[in-house]
């Protein structure tokens, strides 16, 4: 039995300990905001926070999460009022939007580490998150604006 917290709610899991967090969130808890894109931590669509740090849910087995506090896109702000979400909307970042939960979770983690990110910081922090629609230019602008907003 693995005890953990997801979005502030205490949960216990007694399934296959090798099951990645992604499928626990999506199939068992029904938290579908976190996406499947590659299954091997190459695209970042499954990015969530573990104790405040960005984590790839698709390769993280449940066995490694005893006592962890997991936060998903659903817990950031239901109305999109987090500064990063607000800027995502102001800059019209999403096209198809599928990768954007992961991008937003990654950007929030980046801004926690680097409240005033340079272009290089953004490249380093966001390069593991793929957007196939190609919204990178707007992602960069939105991150910079969110940094201003939070300053």
């Amino acid at each position, binding site marked *: 039995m693995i005890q953990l917290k997801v979005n502030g709610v205490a949960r216990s899991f007694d399934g296959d300990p090798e099951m990645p967090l992604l499928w626990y969130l999506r199939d068992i808890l029904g938290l579908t905001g976190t996406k499947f894109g590659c299954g091997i931590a190459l695209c970042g669509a499954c990015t969530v926070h573990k104790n405040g740090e960005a984590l790839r849910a698709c390769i993280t087995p449940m066995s490694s999460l005893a006592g962890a506090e997991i936060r998903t896109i659903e817990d950031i702000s239901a109305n999109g009022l987090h500064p990063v979400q607000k800027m995502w909307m102001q800059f*019209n970042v999403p096209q198809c939007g599928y990768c954007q939960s992961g991008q937003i979770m990654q950007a929030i983690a980046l801004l926690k580490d680097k409240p005033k990110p340079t272009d290089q910081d953004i*490249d380093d922090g966001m390069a593991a998150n793929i957007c196939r629609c190609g919204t990178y230019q707007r992602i960069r602008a939105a991150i910079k604006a969110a940094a201003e907003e939070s300053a």
Partner: protein
Amino acid sequence: MSPISNVSRRGFLQGLAGAGALVLGAYYLPKALRHGDASGRTDADRATLHPNLFVGIDTDGTVYIVAHRSEMGTVIRTTLPMVVADELDADWKRIKIDQAIGDARYGDQNTDGSHSVRSFFDVMRQAGATARSMLILAAAQKWGVPPAECRTDLHAVVHPPTSRRLGYGELATAASKLPVPSAGIRLKTPDQWRYIGKGMTSYDLTELCTGKAVYGEDVRVNGMVYASIEHPPVIGGKVKSVDDSEALKVAGVRETVPIDPFKPPPGFQPLGGIAVIADNTWAAFQGRKKLKIEWDNGPNATYDSDEYKKELQATARNAGKIVRNQGDAESVFSKGGKVFEAEYYVPLLAHAPMEPMVATAEFKDGKLTAWAPTQNPQAAQAIIAQELGIAKEDVICNVTLLGGGFGRKSKPDYVAEAAVLSKKVGRPVKVAWTREDDIKFDYFNAVAAMHMKAAVDAKGKPTAWLQRSVFPPITSIFDVNAVYGDPGHLQQGWTDVPYDIPNLRVENGPAPAHVRIGWLRSVANIYHAFAVQTFTDELAHRAGRDPVEYLLELIGPPRTLNFSGVDYPNYGADLHTYPWETGRLRHVTEIVAEKSGWGKRKFGKGSGIGIAAHRSFLTYVAAVVEVEVSDQGDIKIPRVDYVVDAGRVLNPEVTRAQFEGAAVFGTSVARSGEITAKNGVIEQSNFDTYPVARINEAPYQTNVYLVESDAPPAGVGEPGVPPYIPALCNAIFVATGKRIRELPLSRTSLGKNS
């Protein structure tokens, strides 16, 4: 209104509901804007006032607008309803968008070919204006005044002489009792538009930023089970024997189910294989790894993409089928003089949308309900009906949001898989492809070899021009004998080469397909524009001429291209409404030179800019790309400038985003887009072996300039990709002296000492 906007040129695909719209160049519009259906299939149908398929108004003033096209990021689910709302003079805050199921009553629903706006702009205007005219008449009758004295003012009808006002909700019941006018509807004049041309952000924006948006991957149906399918590793292969004993031991695995191989040609049939049915996605994936299957790999088991490449190139060196001819290029070449030849090559490309193929289906009481991220719900209905032996009307295909499409999700093989499995399992089934499945079992953009030849005069201007392309055609998925390009793909930057050259010949050679070939964002324009626009740049440099000035000279004076004697479908649009005007291509070329500072900016060593111009999907685009290449051969793309003439642009901000995205898509194609095969098996599988551009590799700044125009609207989703790639490669030549004739760039060492 005519039910068919353009008649098919080739009959053999007819009946594959919308399957080959892009292939055929034929788009079906809905049969007259008839009264909303009494069966109430949408909220618009069920609303108090529902004058036609696309709009409904309730007594509380809520306006329902049906989006019948699929949303994959182009914001079409917002843009077309925005047109209805504008002509209705409705308050956007009171609009609810209804996503249509697949239903032939809407006309064509295959969201591809960059044609949603141009095909449905007039239909949407008519739909909104019809409702508006009924509301005006209802108000006039209530007030006992002539309708001509009334007008609308954002969600209300007003009578200025008496300052009376009634909201749309208050008028819905009275208006619903009026006959629906079928003619004489007055449309707004462009100066009266509230939204058209100004644009609207995505209706789904908040949901997209909060994880609430529902994609195909997110569908959950009561009692559903999860399936993962081991497909035959080689297209056309089949199961010889299977041992599923270990798979069945995996916790959560319920059963395995065989799916029959397709009967050639593949079309949109399931590929076949063994499905593992489980309680969750992970268990299905794990069970699948434990399957022991012996395969009969079938006739494509000898396919080797390196060998195939040599065959294509050899074919391209020999005379092919002439698809356009003017003057006598051959006799000019035979006279000798300055003749240049070059060969170009673009490999197979995968779509790799962020959401892999996925679909959910429930077979119950002889009927099938599907929930799918599909660009083409009517084709899903058709293939499901065929696979299950039921009527198309007994297939309901709900359309979710799409996590990217790029053409892949026009082919509903994965939806058919879910349907077949649900019938066999007796429960709702969700089929989830892995990324590896997605890349290995794509309908790939065709591999192509191009042979170019030009004889030039003393100033370097071509006096004769020959271009020959060879690629396995998309039609091969519908016709096992197809080896030549069809007019719908030869038109894409090939038979319409716009150059002012007296002796010009365009040819196409045969190539058999060994994988499923399919349309991908921009399709044949990708390889054709690469060859034509790179060869043009090569000739300019050989002649010591400025590439922009040289390109303009080749385009020649402003004129309308004459396609007599050429089978040129013009993307399904008639040439009268959408003529091919070289003046517009010149214009975007001249403006992009100016905007990019062409000839005025200085570049250091390892840096430079390149240009290309191309018309596709009826839109004229010129691109200038700036590149920096390090001594180690790493590429950076600091800046891209696009000038776009897409006729009237309905949603400018969204349009700019499409071109920004096209530059990134083009970067992926150019840098690393390559699918290869050995023994019929695709060698790539995930983003490690099929890399796509990341934020640090993508263009840093893409500027998009839209030409103001009141010409009929044209496409914006695809036209940004074709000129981008040659412009990038032409810039690399300036920066490094290395001429790129083969994609992807990862095949060429761009480092200083290589």
